[in-house]
């Protein structure tokens, strides 16, 4: 017994100081191999008395367990140490830059159009479009603005022919005409798009964007117009309350007509929408003129409704603090990167209009 105890103690000591995995494995076969020390001890069990055998077998088993346990712990220990050593050598500088990121952006005009579409979609409007080149009739005459009407002077028009028959639309209102001519009431549409006027300075660009709105049904009145625009403005500027003022104005294609102002104030040199005692004109609207309805074959004694036109670029400038309209169209990489929106930032009702 003392022999094997001694063997055990010797090997435990050996194992304790051993750090080489191969040598541990050698010890393992020295002890438990075919002719291993412990294996041989077990073989001896057959040649001793039953009494002794019982005791020895039990001791031997304990020793065997203890050694095997020790070996496997040792192996694990060494392996872990080796892995750690290896990992230590593999350490890289993770603060080095990643592979180049190319960040694309959506132009603020597109983002604002999507915001507007999302808001109006919520209250049942669908999106219509019309061509950028229009004929004189759709752009003016059908909209109750005959050739001799002084209101035409308010639109500096780009023409494509000398007879002034073809032009670049000066507003999105001709989409109203097209929509109503090709369909039957009721109508509930918005029409965002490019519009053109031949003036150009700090606050005017020869091309800009408008969104037209049209809601025609049997009983749509000015109260609905007010409600619709009030809803839109609140949603768009993402404020709970908005100071809004409807004041009479004149557009040939609506009667009565209104311009809408929103309240604002200047705080720390920045414009704050919705509060304050200053007014900012943001859109024109009114009840669609019976002459227009007649021109598009809608019976004005049965149907009525409202229309509005909003400057998209202007809305974007107000919401996102952009000062210069001209910059929208100058394709400056820095400007686009700064004012552009992440392509995944899609305005929607459930996820919110803007981040």
């Amino acid at each position, binding site marked *: 017994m003392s022999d094997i105890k001694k063997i055990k103690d010797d090997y435990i000591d050996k194992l304790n100081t051993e750090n080489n995995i191969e040598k541990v494995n050698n010890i393992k076969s020295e002890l438990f191999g075919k002719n291993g020390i412990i294996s041989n001890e077990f073989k001896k069990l057959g040649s001793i008395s039953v009494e002794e055998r019982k005791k020895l077998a039990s001791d031997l088993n304990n020793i065997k367990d203890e050694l095997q346990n020790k070996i496997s712990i040792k192996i694990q220990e060494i392996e872990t140490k080796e892995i750690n050593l290896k990992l230590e050598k593999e350490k890289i500088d993770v603060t080095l830059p990643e592979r*180049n990121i190319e960040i*694309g952006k959506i132009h603020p005009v597109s983002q604002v159009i999507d915001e507007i579409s999302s808001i109006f979609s919520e209250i*049942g409007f669908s999106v219509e479009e019309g061509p950028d*080149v229009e004929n004189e009739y*759709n752009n003016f005459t059908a909209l109750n603005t005959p050739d001799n009407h002084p209101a035409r002077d308010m639109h500096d028009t780009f023409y494509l022919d000398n007879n002034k028959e073809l032009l670049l639309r000066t507003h999105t209102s001709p989409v109203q005409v097209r929509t109503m001519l090709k369909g039957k009431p009721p109508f509930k549409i918005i029409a965002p798009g490019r519009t053109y006027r031949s003036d150009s300075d700090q606050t005017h660009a*020869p091309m800009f964007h408008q969104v037209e709105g049209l809601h025609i049904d049997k009983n749509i009145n*000015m109260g609905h117009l007010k409600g619709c625009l009030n809803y839109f403005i609140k949603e768009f500027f993402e404020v709970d309350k908005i100071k809004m003022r*409807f004041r009479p104005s004149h557009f040939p294609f609506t009667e009565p007509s209104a311009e809408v102002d929103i309240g604002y104030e200047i705080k720390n040199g920045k414009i704050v929408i919705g509060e304050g005692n200053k007014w900012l004109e943001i859109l024109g609207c009114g009840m669609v003129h019976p002459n227009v309805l007649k021109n598009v074959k809608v019976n004005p004694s049965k149907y009525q409704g409202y229309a509005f036109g909003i400057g998209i670029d202007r809305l974007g400038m107000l919401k996102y603090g952009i000062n210069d309209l001209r910059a929208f169209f100058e394709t400056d990489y820095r400007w686009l990167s700064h004012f552009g929106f992440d392509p995944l930032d899609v305005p929607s009702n459930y996820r919110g209009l803007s981040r």
Partner: protein
Amino acid sequence: MKFTVDWLKNHLDTKFNNNQIMDKLTNIGLEVESFESTTSELDTFIVAKIINAKTHPNADRLKLCDVDIGSDKTIEVVCGAPNAKNGLLTVYAPPGSIIPKNRMKLSVSKIRGVTSYGMLCSESELLLSNESDGIIELNNKYANKIGEKYFKNTSEKVIDLSITPNRPDCLGVRGIARDLSAAGAGKLKINKKSNLKYRGNQNINVTIKKEKAQGCTIFGSCLIKGVTNKESPKWLKDKILSLGQKPISAIVDITNYVMFDLNRPLHAYDADKIDNEIIVRSSSKGESFEALDNKKYILENDMCVISDRSGVLGLGGIIGGTRSGTEYSTKNILLESAYFLPRSIRKTSKQLNIDTDAKFRFERGIDPLSIEEGLIKASEIIKQICGGEISNLDVKKIETYKKTTINFDPFLFEKTTGFNVENKELIKILEKLGFNVSKNKKILKLAIPSWRPDITQPIDIVEEIVRIKGYEHINTSEPVKTRLKPTLNYHQKLFHFLQRSVASKGYLETVTWSFTDSKINQLFKENDEEIPIVNPISSDLNVLRNSIFPNLLFYLKKNLDRGFKDISLFEIGPAFKGKNPGDQLTVIGAVRAGKVSRLSWNDKERIVDTFDVKKDLIQTLCEAGINKDDIFIDDRTPTYYHPGKSGGVYQNKNEKNAVAYFGEIHPNLIKKLDIKTEGLVIFEICLDYIKESKQKIKDLKSEYKFSDFQKSERDFAFIINKNFKSQELVNIIKSVDNKLIQSVRVFDVFEGENIPEGKKSIAVNVTIQSDEKTLNENDLDKINKLIISSVESKSGAKIRS
């Protein structure tokens, strides 16, 4: 339309203060643009203090003064005044000021080699006294006013209204007063009855010729004999100045005053310069006259002219002529008050490009019943200021004004506005606006005032009532959420999807003009017609763009010039194919310039190439729902592409129109456009050519099938003609067995060493898998052999051993 509150009060009895008046005006649709004092030349003179006066280095009599001009600013002024000394409070005139005494405009100047910014003023220079020996010495009361205006601006504040084109009546102060009175802001004053005494007849014969194009229907006039024309008295000058106009002479100022007071344009002729008679007629082409703006106008046919026996005197309702103009020496005048047709006025003024206050008014419609009122009011004032005897009024007309009436059902008001106004109130509003109201059961019969040419139908009456009542009375109804159809149709969805898909690949979206420079456009227009703009904003934006690339490359160059190297830009928008409405396509144009992995510490940098944009393009199309397996590529592309390094993309092999192109831009173009970059590749997608899949996504998703049997991969390398397209090779292999061959991928292309001239080696990896069983070696061998034999027979390729 400009006027003062005082002027308004000539017509309106009101207890409203100025702010209330301004609010009311805006609330009834007469938008107040501004309410400010007219600026005065004297505004620039400010109180200042000499901080330090020292002798001029080059002149003993001059001094160099450091002058405190407020707002923490100190400037240096050279001054010759003996009394200029430290601490003196005085008056400073900055550069740009006009010195009242000699009307000289100050500029920054060097006096004996030292720059002087403006000057310090003497009383004489400011016309305050004759004291010219030294600069003004202000007392200590001014010590805390440094930087403030020295002269108080005493001019009355002027209201500037923006009058919409439908309201000619409000181009006169009286019309504005009438609107205000209807809105409860006071009482319209009743015109005093004239007690003017007339003597003799207007003996210059007036004829309005009955012609088809006659633009004048009424011509009223009177003769005023024995006037003394002179400078206007102060009250009248002030009125004219408040309009932002220059006083000319009493006669002219009075006609202008009446025009702005009553919206009744008048014209005064020197009666002695009229040759015998007045003939109102249509002009003949080639006639000419010199107008009061000192320009000579050559007329076309059918313009309404006022003439005498010698020829044209003036353009009726637009501008008078110098030949019959009044002067200080004028003794006898003929005063004209007429009605000209808006259409005629507008046409003539457009043709001749003339804009005058009279034209502006006649074009919008003048009250045809105001002929006499205008003559009387002007005559009264002329008599007061210039004396003279007034003849009987002479009114010639070829048409009589007929009052129009409208039958108005008050229910239309509520139906349109959504709220109700009692009949009594409604009638009161209309009456105050000048309507004559009579009732016929529920219907109101309304006689329209002669000064309201804009009112022609019941809806106009609704507007009158609601605007006077106030838009704040309109309720705010919650939006009706009913949806009639989906928000976006297929192509609109595609637009939004492609837009964001391209941007997500690192491209910045831009929006550029729909027009461009014809010189650049020409390089991209292919067979499209050029679409010139008749009146372009500038010569380099003179055509509609046939393609998005002219603008995109123009701005790419600008950004490269700004020092950016790696640029990805795109635009989605119209490209025009013809000049008619609808001749346009919705297109995405994208450009990518520079390098990939520039300055990367771990990747090798390389120039962007065709396969970079091909990836961006194909991925975008797939994301938008196009089936990648159906996509067909060929190498026919527009001429602005590199002929060898570009491709067209078709939704499938049988489509006629390419939905997209990609590749390098033609080197000649890069040279012509002078674009300096390491690499430049582009792609474009035509949205209109993308066809909607017949199957909805829910149908496609439900077709989910997969195989769990083992798949095998085999590689093949073929030696094949250099021009043979890999796409075709892949298709040959796929068609060997569509069921078993799951995918074919080209993984190596090689030319050169060991490959015969004119040939290339293509290596493909083929994935083979059955839906029914695990393929054994035998099956695989069979298919391998089939692949090799098919490729060899169909393409002339040889398997590489």
